[in-house]
């Protein structure tokens, strides 16, 4: 099935338009991610790389491996190469303000001290988002000590999750973290390398999750706040609708969902109530919703 000698990606036959379309369709069905024609070079280049590494004899051979391999390992490898993982600490931080000034106080007002509050960062990429949430809560929500706050973080890309667990970041990620927070929560290990302190690192649970896999998603229920930012931009309209409906099911009644600033959808209103906190709109699942 596979040829013995390794070839470099340049030696791999180029991928025909039909093959590209087939691959995109397959990737879309499995991940929700849509590749436009503009992304063609990006995709083809990485697929050729995988064809070379797996020593597949042709695109067809590789595509078979991708689809039918029982372990799903090759699919995971390709996912890791084709996702866009750009993120940084305190990105769109007005939503974190909204969390500690509006959402958490409101949620807490309906709970008893000692009760649990569950927050989910999906997708979390290399971890900057859930760790920002952790720091924001510790620094800016005085009632924090009265509740049990759990932060979950998930992504489809297993490689970024490894980085997230390691918790080592460079200047590029940390641009928006001021000196006081750096001193308190990070340890400088090298020029341009900062390690997040264990206190924060260990407060987040990371897991591999594909948001369009409803069987996987069924295990995640009863969340009070979900951050789902800069994911839906990679999906088509229908995929966005379906994802938002899935997240609706993951929320507890009265729970909140925060989307990226360019991701709000006209159809949100049939499921959620718009709520304004700290100058930003978030979406609340009605308290009487099942």
């Amino acid at each position, binding site marked *: 099935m596979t040829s013995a000698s390794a070839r470099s990606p340049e030696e791999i036959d180029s991928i025909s338009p039909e093959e590209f379309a087939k691959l995109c369709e397959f990737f879309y069905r499995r991940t929700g991610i849509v590749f436009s024609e503009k992304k063609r070079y990006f995709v083809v280049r990485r697929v050729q790389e995988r064809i070379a590494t797996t020593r597949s004899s042709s695109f067809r051979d590789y595509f078979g491996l991708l689809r039918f391999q029982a372990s799903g390992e090759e699919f995971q490898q390709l996912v890791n190469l084709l996702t866009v993982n750009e993120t940084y600490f305190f990105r769109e931080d007005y939503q974190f303000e909204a969390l500690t000034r509006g959402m958490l106080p409101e949620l807490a007002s309906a709970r008893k001290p*000692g009760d649990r509050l*569950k927050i989910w960062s999906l997708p979390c990429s290399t971890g900057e988002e859930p760790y920002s949430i*952790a720091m924001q*809560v*510790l620094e800016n929500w005085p009632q*924090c*000590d*009265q*509740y*049990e*706050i*759990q*932060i*979950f973080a998930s992504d489809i890309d297993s490689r970024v999750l490894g980085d997230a667990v390691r918790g080592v970041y460079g200047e590029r990620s940390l641009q928006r973290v001021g000196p006081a927070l750096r001193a308190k929560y990070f340890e400088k290990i090298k020029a341009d390398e900062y390690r997040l302190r264990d206190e*924060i690192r*260990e*407060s*987040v*649970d990371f*897991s591999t*999750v594909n948001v369009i896999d*409803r*069987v*996987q*998603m*069924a*295990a*995640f229920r009863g969340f009070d706040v979900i951050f789902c930012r800069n994911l839906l931009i990679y999906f088509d*309209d*229908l995929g966005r*609708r*379906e994802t938002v*409906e899935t997240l*609706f*099911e993951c929320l507890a009644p009265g729970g909140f969902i925060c989307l990226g600033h360019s991701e709000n959808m006209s*159809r949100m209103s*049939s*499921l959620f109530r718009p709520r304004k906190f700290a100058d930003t709109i978030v979406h609340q699942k009605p308290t009487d*919703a*099942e």
Partner: protein
Amino acid sequence: MGLVKAVRIDSSGERPVQPSEPLDLSMRLAALDSPDAAERRRAVRDLAAEPDAVPALCARLIEERNLSVRTALFTTLIRLRSPAVVAGLLPLLRLDDANLRNEAIDALQDMPEEVGPFVETLLGDHDSDVRILAIQLLSTLAHPDAPRWLVGVVDTDSHVNVCAAATDCLAEVGGPEAIGPLRRLARRFAEERFVAFAVDMAIRRIEGR
């Protein structure tokens, strides 16, 4: 208290060994009538790859009062897009519930290819309200024939409000070929001043003035 280590959620154990358990379709359809909204919603979403469920899903849409279930019904039907889905959604245009009508139009706009073959029948409907909704549908339907259908309305429809709706729509999507028919329309309804006004506006928009 404060931040506590979250307990790992295991999503892997839930997967049935057979990816799609061959649960009988009739059993899955029966769940559409469950008294529990969350269960109905789940049933609807589970049918997103089941073309045979279209008639039952469309029937449910007419009964369904819960908004989240209704939203899921539309999403599932858009995923299943087919001539059968279009045929199942069109009767909603005759209902009194304006929200439901508008949501049906939104959903139909997401399946232009499938809607195409139904347009002429819809524009020939005996009920002028349905014809007006058909024009609303055409206004943002990504179908190359939309301007031609609208010109047909302007040329032949006997109802002044239907023609006026088509005129407004042509102002947005029409090309130079609509100008002649629009002028004829103004003559046909010469006694209705608002028609002359709408035609004038539309022609100006088309000519880019």
